[in-house]
């Protein structure tokens, strides 16, 4: 049954910004889909608001719309493009929900657009919990199974119904809101108070005000199956996944293992039969789906928990775990192919109609960011809270586990590399009772201090004894290593085969004096990893794809190659401050260098495009630690040289964020050829004193500053430069630990909390420039010191908010030519002074017409993809070429860079791009169940970003808001409460809103000022004043459509009022401006919306405005 011939033009919807529960995996799946569809000769139009994605690169679709993924905007795209079909299953819940909305509103029918790869009724049956229960029952009947195949449950639409249901089922119960993604709003209630809290917010979070109250299967074994079906009803199971954390922890927050480790064939096949029957009964037309099961460890009773009738985070994991590209195959199935007609990419000789089999073990560990949200409850529940994940492969479970643990890039890099947390078996067992980040460390400690496997299983609420025993094996190995008179070949091999790192061994044996000592011994004894291949078939057939992982086994499978090799080090697990933007740059480096070099990618993040085996010539799925990277360099270099080639000619460290950058100096010292900006130059930019000298030599201004290792030091500096001061640790990404401090007491408090201060890692104390305009520049510099300004971004919020969290505009909207000239002059001086070869990001503050350098980072920044898309120039590609010796002049001549001028000198009529950050506050609650404060600060908190692009700022800003938070209002009530210092600045924008017909509601102080300027407003109390109509209840009731609230300077009460107001706005899902410039920008956006002239344009057209040669 070959490809359909009636489809000529397919529209794909992406998943929008990275948020918790929806990350890079949908860039991976969407990119694959676009590539497949185009290679099949179809026209592809794409909608996705996330500029940091590969899929939104203009070459991946025929028409790329970086527009909000809302039914309104997508309809505009459909009207403009008139596609034959819409493929909504590769863009996560966002795409699926949008498709359902377009179907229900009749838009698809109106424009004659067919949904492919999905069927509305099937989506409903899969996602509507009540319908799904019936589906499972029917599927069970089909198999002749009796008994409850789902947990007993009831759907409720009100709190009364919820309470009645719980009276019947008894506590604890699980609460799951319908139609939310990543389990948002769900949780488990053990007490009536928890029930009210969770069910109440769950009802609010569900777009259909619906929650499911369900019998608790807490502590049962948890499994997932990834399945695919074609239109000929062929079904295959791609992967089974077993959660180490039993039921009760969201699978996205669980440590998971593939394949399932603790099922007999009989049980596995029962699960497979049930999964297939459910898939058929739901009627997923074609494509992938994910089904979750729970199994009672006491008696094997199996229940179906839920299904996702689409490609999901787990399918990305399954694709990387097995080598079977689910999204790619799903796209082919959607256009009519059947599984037997599609070749297996890896073997080339066998078809995709089969079930991958693994001869290795895969472990995935989630990465959390609780340190960014101090008030948030770190207990793991059925609501997903992790921001990223790392995956690893090993030839056995301990090897994979240890590799995954050191891939996390947390302070502890696996067992025994950080101080014990508990100190006794009792303490560790106690900690295990509450699921939390790093739970396996508690398992290890409990066992080491004498707890039994059974005790650990019981305390942890059901971690399978098999997994606990595997960790016990590591505890025993630790004792063996500690007790051995010497670490000999046998013991070293044994330790390495269990996945222990040199660093872990060094931690156990002080005589090595660090991991270098272990490595020297290991190399002397010839104990080095071999590299195996992920081939979908456990070596039954030869693999054509070099997708490798390390193991301490016998035979290596790395093919010799004489081509010059370039390694690109990726960025590891997503975390706040280091995410998809860096993966984007790494992938671009591969694209730029492929063909010229053999490109070799090293990364451990399963969500990304970089770890698609199709991206680079070779892929090593490995932790980004010094040891693991060095071994990859070694094997690539030695096999290259043995084949008569030059081996590794370059390693790129400046595109993957702080992770690879942090390895640069050690790699160089070990003889690895780092290309681009040298580690010494990196140090020049990152070390405060050295950088200060660079600035001084060039005569560039910077805020007065100093470094401190004690409170006395810090106070001395603060007295000298004057408050407020910005304090932060050195060498950080994402503004970790960065704060603005206004007085001695807070300064003392900060120093006390910053426990890691040492002479090597001092605290930086800078004069903070109040009310300055912040400017961000991305630039390229070649080896000859020629500089190309990629783009100049003007922040919408004033300096002091982390650049990753603030909105910005490109081209800068208020800067004049003279300012831009100074920015250019400064940037060139820094690039040359530091000795950059590749990318450079500089942050400036403009205050009282004076430009100050805040910081410079000689690496790809978070804004590289945004700038590239806003200016039609692929900066990361250019950077990769420059690192390997190309000059800016050459790249101009090639057409990669603009022939004349640069991103700092865009044509007058260039489109305006606005970047807006997306924040995860909704995900987090305090232990008491309240929202966490949404206030922005120098510490980055956003998980992702969107881009709004149009011909005028107002339009672009309105689009960015629609994409990030939902549409700005065009009528209704706006609540205003601003700090005294902001009151003057607020008058004009609020006046404008009143003129546009909005009703203004204000607090007393703000209202007074507004009235004096002739603005009619209703005055209400703040929350704490307990009036009948206080601000918080007005917001909660939905009466208010937007909030403008800037933080009050000081005073606990004022601060907590602001917190209550902002949390209410986040809960009510309405825009909330916390700065004056943000509010002013919102007003411009609202004006654009009211004028009603909002249009959509593909990036290809917008780029042609900047680069007319592109349209030729």
């Amino acid at each position: 049954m070959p490809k359909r011939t009636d489809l000529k033009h397919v529209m794909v919807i992406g998943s929008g910004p990275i948020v918790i529960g929806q990350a890079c995996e949908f860039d991976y799946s969407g990119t694959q889909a676009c590539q497949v569809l185009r290679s099949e000769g179809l026209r592809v139009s794409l909608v996705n608001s996330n500029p940091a994605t590969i899929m939104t690169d203009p070459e991946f679709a025929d028409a790329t719309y970086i527009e909000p993924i809302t039914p309104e905007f997508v309809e505009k795209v459909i009207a403009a493009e008139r596609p034959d079909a819409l493929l909504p299953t590769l863009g996560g819940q966002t795409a699926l929900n949008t498709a359902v909305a377009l179907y229900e509103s009749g838009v698809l029918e109106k424009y004659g657009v067919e949904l492919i790869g999905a069927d509305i009724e099937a989506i409903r049956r899969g996602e509507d919990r009540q319908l799904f229960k019936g589906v499972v029952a029917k599927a069970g009947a089909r198999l002749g199974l009796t008994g409850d195949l789902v947990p007993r449950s009831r759907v409720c639409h009100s709190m009364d119904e919820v309470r009645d249901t719980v009276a019947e089922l008894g506590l604890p119960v699980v609460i799951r809101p319908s139609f939310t993604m990543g389990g948002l709003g769900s949780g488990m209630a053990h007490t009536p108070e928890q029930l009210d809290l969770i069910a109440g917010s769950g009802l609010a979070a569900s777009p259909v005000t619906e929650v499911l109250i369900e019998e608790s299967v807490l502590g049962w074994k948890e499994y997932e199956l990834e399945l695919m079906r074609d239109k000929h009803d062929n079904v295959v199971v791609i992967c089974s996944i077993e959660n180490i954390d039993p039921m009760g922890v969201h699978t996205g927050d669980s440590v998971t293992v593939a394949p399932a480790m603790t099922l007999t064939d009989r049980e596995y096949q029962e699960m497979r039969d049930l999964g297939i029957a459910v898939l058929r009964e739901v009627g997923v037309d074609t494509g992938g789906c994910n089904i979750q099961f729970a199994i009672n460890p006491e008696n094997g009773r199996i229940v179906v928990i839920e299904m996702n009738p689409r490609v999901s985070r787990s399918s990305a994991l399954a694709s990387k775990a097995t080598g079977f590209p689910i999204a790619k195959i799903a796209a082919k199935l959607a256009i009519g192919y059947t599984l037997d007609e599609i070749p297996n990419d890896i073997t080339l000789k066998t078809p995709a109609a089969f079930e991958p089999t693994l001869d290795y073990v895969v472990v995935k560990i989630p990465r959390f960011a609780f340190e960014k949200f101090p008030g948030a409850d770190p207990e793991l529940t059925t609501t997903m809270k992790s921001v990223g994940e790392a995956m690893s492969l090993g030839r056995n479970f301990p090897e994979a586990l240890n590799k995954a643990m050191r891939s996390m890039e947390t302070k502890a890099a696996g067992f025994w590399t950080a101080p014990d947390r508990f100190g006794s078996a009792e303490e560790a067992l106690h900690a295990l009772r509450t699921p939390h980040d790093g739970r396996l460390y508690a398992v290890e400690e409990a066992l080491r201090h004498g707890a039994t496997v059974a005790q650990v299983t019981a305390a942890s609420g059901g971690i399978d004894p098999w997994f606990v025993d595997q960790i016990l094996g590591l505890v025993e190995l630790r004792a063996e290593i500690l007790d051995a008179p010497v670490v000999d070949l046998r013991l070293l091999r044994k330790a390495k085969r269990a996945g222990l790192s040199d660093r872990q061994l060094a931690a156990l044996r002080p005589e090595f004096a660090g991991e270098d000592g272990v490595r020297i011994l290991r190399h002397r004894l010839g104990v080095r990893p071999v590299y195996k291949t992920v081939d979908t078939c456990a070596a039954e057939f030869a693999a054509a794809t070099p997708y490798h992982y390390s193991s301490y086994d016998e035979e290596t499978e790395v093919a010799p190659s004489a081509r010059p090799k370039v390694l690109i080090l990726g960025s590891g697990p997503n975390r706040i401050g280091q995410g998809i933007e860096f993966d984007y740059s790494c992938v671009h480096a591969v694209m730029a260098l492929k063909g010229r070099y053999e490109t070799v990618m090293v990364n451990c993040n399963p969500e990304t495009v970089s770890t698609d085996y199709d991206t680079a010539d070779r892929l090593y799925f490995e932790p980004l630690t010094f040891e693991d990277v060095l071994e990859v360099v070694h094997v690539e270099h030695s096999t290259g040289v043995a084949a008569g080639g030059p081996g590794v000619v370059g390693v790129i460290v400046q595109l993957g964020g702080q992770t690879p950058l942090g390895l640069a100096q050690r790699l160089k010292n070990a003889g690895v050829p780092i290309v681009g900006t040298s580690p010494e130059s990196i140090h020049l930019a990152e070390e405060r004193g050295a950088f200060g000298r660079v600035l001084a030599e060039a005569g560039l201004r910077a805020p007065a500053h100093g470094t401190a290792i004690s409170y006395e030091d810090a106070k001395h500096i603060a007295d000298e430069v004057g408050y407020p001061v910005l304090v932060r640790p050195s060498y950080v990404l994402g503004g970790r630990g960065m704060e603005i401090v206004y007085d001695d007491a807070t300064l003392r408090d900060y120093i006390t909390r910053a426990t890691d201060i040492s002479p090597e890692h001092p605290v930086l104390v800078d004069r903070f420039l109040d009310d300055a305009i912040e400017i961000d520049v991305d630039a390229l510099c070649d080896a000859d010191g020629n500089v190309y300004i990629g783009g100049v971004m003007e922040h919408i919020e004033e300096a002091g908010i982390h650049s990753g969290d603030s909105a910005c505009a490109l081209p800068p909207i208020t800067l004049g030519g003279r300012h831009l000239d100074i920015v250019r002059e400064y940037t060139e001086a820094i690039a040359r002074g530091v000795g950059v070869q590749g990318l450079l990001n500089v942050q400036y503050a403009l205050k009282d017409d004076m430009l100050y350098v805040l910081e410079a980072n000689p690496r790809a920044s978070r804004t590289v993809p945004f700038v590239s898309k806003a200016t039609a120039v692929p900066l990361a590609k250019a950077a990769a070429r420059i690192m390997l010796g190309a000059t800016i002049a050459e790249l101009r001549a090639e057409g990669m860079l603009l022939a004349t001028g640069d991103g700092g000198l865009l044509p007058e009529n260039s489109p305006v791009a606005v970047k807006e950050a997306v924040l995860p506050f909704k995900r987090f609650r305090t232990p008491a169940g309240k929202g966490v404060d949404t206030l922005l600060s120098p510490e980055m908190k956003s998980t992702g970003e969107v881009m709004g692009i149009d011909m005028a700022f107002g339009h672009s800003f309105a689009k960015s808001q629609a994409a990030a938070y939902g549409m700005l209002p065009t009528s209704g009530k706006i609540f205003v409460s601003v700090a005294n210092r902001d009151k003057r600045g607020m008058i004009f924008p609020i006046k404008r809103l009143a003129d546009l017909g909005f009703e203004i509601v204000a607090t007393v102080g703000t209202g007074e000022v507004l009235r004096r300027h002739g603005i009619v407003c209703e005055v209400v109390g703040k929350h704490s004043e307990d009036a009948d109509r206080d601000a918080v209840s007005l917001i909660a009731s939905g009466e208010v459509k937007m909030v403008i609230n800037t933080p009050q300077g000081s005073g606990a009460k004022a601060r907590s009022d602001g917190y209550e107001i902002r949390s209410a706005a986040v809960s009510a899902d309405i825009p909330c401006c916390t700065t004056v410039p943000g509010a002013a920008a919102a007003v411009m956006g609202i004006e654009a919306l009211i004028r009603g002239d909002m249009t959509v344009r593909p990036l290809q057209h917008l780029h042609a405005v900047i680069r007319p040669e592109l349209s030729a």
Partner: protein
Amino acid sequence: MTDAILVLEDGRVFRGESYGSVGETFGEAVFTTGMTGYQETLTDPSYHRQVVVQTAPHIGNTGVNDEDDESDRIWVAGYVVRDPARVPSNWRSTEDLATRLARSGVVGISGVDTRALTRHLRERGAMRVGVSSVERDPQALLARVLEQPQMTGADLSLEVSTPEAYTVDAVGEHRFTVAALDLGIKRNVPRRLAARGVTTHVLPANSTLGDLLSVGADAVFFSPGPGDPATADHAVMLAQEVMKRSMPLFGICFGSQILGRALGFGTYKLGYGHRGINQPVMDRTTGKVEVTSHNHGFAVDAPLDGVADTAFGRVEVSHVCLNDNVVEGLRALDVPAFTVQYHPEAAAGPHDADYLFDRFVELVERPGQVRKQLINGGK
């Protein structure tokens, strides 16, 4: 931990540790890629005289239980794994695997780079092997390996067959009776038949047509089993007699090769065989793909396309493996006989091909209609 060595007949040596029983063993080295079902694999008579390499790295995780054996003993000649489980974990587990292996005298080796071994067998083909935890000298072991018989030409049916006939009763209402020639049958075959109301008489491999008829058989089943089908002259002759009488005939695996030979086709040894539970087979009647359980080192050499004329009328290839186009099923169009080379009874493996037992039941109960359907559907 006792050291152990594994030596292939081409001289390649792998080192590991003793697993199961300490001792020495020989056989044909084959690999199986199933990630579940080691207990079923170990007790499958088709693995008689074979040293089985498990590509799945962790073996023994769920222990062994009283329910999942496919025969009354472990048949593998030796066992090669990478990481044996330290403890079993499963609610049905009654014993850990290492103990069972030791108790059963199965010599195994663990800690081997099973992937390297598998790649070697894939490239060089299945070959003789020795595993020893008593011999230290690989050359000495190699000499003994080279003395072992080859699998080609091995007639093993009588070694695995039941010495005495026994009966597996139908569950529920009895529909008809099948005589199953035990060439190495797995328990799940009569079980799948019983679930459909079929009573199965399992008969020794050397049974005659008279023996089959004497149990009142309405149909005959030729079981899976080990060895070279080229040696199975008795079973081949029996299949021909069954077809001459137009008795419905169904065969699995070795049984399929018997039918192939009975129809006049040849059989041949595959390079390294099909052993795993993820093999895609297309049912050419429906065009659908089923994921199936395989365990065969030999295959039937029949024309893939069109209809072949044989002494028993027209015959076509009903199923093929999509990985390599090996014949996976035969269907006679003029006599009521069909067979598959793979394992619809699964155990271990997916249940996708379970429908073949229904086809068999249909063939017995409504032979004319089924044949008409097959012919129409097939072409």
